[in-house]
């Protein structure tokens, strides 16, 4: 079970960090664009790895995706549409929840892998839907460049997932109750 109040508070803090001081973590790759970590994806992946109920995981991920949708509008001439990131987040969280038993999710490497998979799927859905919705102003080269940007973002987030997961595990009892998994430990 997810403890909603602390979970939402932490998500809000992460969103605030991502939209403000998170800019320090962003670097520009020539010809690709800005690459920075998706901090909310770390929290969403953590929930998908350890929460007991898949509906709660997807609801939490939907909320975080919607928050990202609300706080990002650049890239298209009149602004981007709302919805694609919430769909992407919910779908990615559902997938991670489904496949988590196949890996040793208490080990750092699988955790980084899960965060990468999460980001690739969520951001892939987001970029594909946004490009589809504004197909008249998106070229294939632009779409490819943004997918490459998403791939680099996924690697970056995957690397940050290891310390991120370690920190979240410390606060686990306030975020996710009754953890499941091997011997019920994190």
């Amino acid at each position: 079970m997810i403890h909603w109040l602390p979970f939402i508070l932490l998500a809000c803090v992460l969103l605030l960090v991502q939209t403000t001081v998170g800019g320090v973590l962003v670097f520009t790759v020539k010809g690709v664009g800005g690459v920075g970590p998706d901090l909310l994806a770390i929290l969403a992946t953590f929930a998908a790895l350890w929460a007991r109920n898949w509906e709660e995981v997807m609801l939490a991920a939907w909320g975080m995706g919607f928050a990202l949708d609300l706080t990002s509008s650049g890239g298209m001439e009149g602004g981007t549409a709302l919805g694609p990131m919430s769909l992407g987040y919910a779908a990615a969280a559902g997938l991670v929840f489904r496949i988590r038993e196949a890996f040793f999710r208490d080990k750092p490497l699988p955790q980084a892998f899960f965060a990468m998979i999460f980001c690739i799927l969520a951001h892939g859905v987001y970029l594909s839907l946004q490009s589809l919705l504004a197909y008249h102003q998106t070229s294939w080269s632009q779409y490819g460049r943004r997918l490459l940007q998403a791939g680099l973002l996924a690697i970056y987030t995957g690397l940050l997932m290891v310390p991120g997961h370690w920190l979240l595990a410390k606060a686990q009892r306030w975020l996710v109750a009754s953890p499941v998994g091997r011997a019920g430990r994190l």
Partner: protein
Amino acid sequence: MKLLKKPSKKAVLLFLMGASVVMALWGAPLANRLRVLAHWVLAPLGQPGMSLTASVKSLTGGPEEVSPAEAGRLKEEVDTLRWRAQKAEEDLAHYLEQDALRQRLYGKMTDFPCEMVSAQVAASDSLPYGRTRLVNKGGSSGAEPGSRVVTLLTDRSKALPPKLATISSSALVGRLLETGGYYARLQLVTDGGFRIRARIIRVVDPNRPRWITVIAGGVAAQEQLSDRNNQVIEVEAQGDGVDGLVVREVKKYHNVQNGDWLVTAKDDAFLPEHVRIGRVVEVGDDPRNQLFSVVRVQPYADLAALKDVFIVVPLASKASNGAAGTRN
């Protein structure tokens, strides 16, 4: 009573997913309205963080390293320019004093027909695909979607003469995408969705003469570029989504070169003045048409360390809004 039963999590999830699809299909108009609500939460909390980010970026994003010899030459140049600036400031102060007196006695007041509303950057995009910023001024200050946003590049430790001088040292940083009562979303010039009608001004440099094709009376002739034949080139520029702007379909015979300026068009409804956008850094062939070039422009303002900006509100539009408000 059964109708009031608490919905299951599955039902809530399905409803939310459906809502996402509807919102996505609805598109930007609904999104921009809802985002204005999010500004109220994000903007007041975000400003200290953005100040910190801007400070760090301004430290790390400095100019490229120069050789000691080049540094010495630049230092000499800076000293000379500083001396000249000081002289010019004294001359200007004298001139302004004289001019103010003349204006008071005989002149009709003329000015830049816009109000500069100062604003601060409160937050940036949560995703790296767009280049937008949240600023802490909105509709209540007269800003509206489309309003141009500039940054001033003057040395603030010195007293500035009135408005005209400050305008001459500013650069365009973007336009407003959506505006709420007290907050607005600024789309930077480098954003993939940013488009603007602009002009390229070729720099006449006697040390680097260039030949252009001039068409007069239906006859084309090669001439050396000079102040006499240096006409502005009308273009449409768009952000490249990374760190610059791209200008397509620039006729090759204009012979645009690195170092030329991209400026705003004076007949722009939102910014009726030439304001610098950036400098040409690359001129390449257009793969679709050999008669055209593709020009890459680097923004003049340091967008990574953007903190203080000015929203340009044309006085005519403010007056008409005020009149409309009175009518309502």
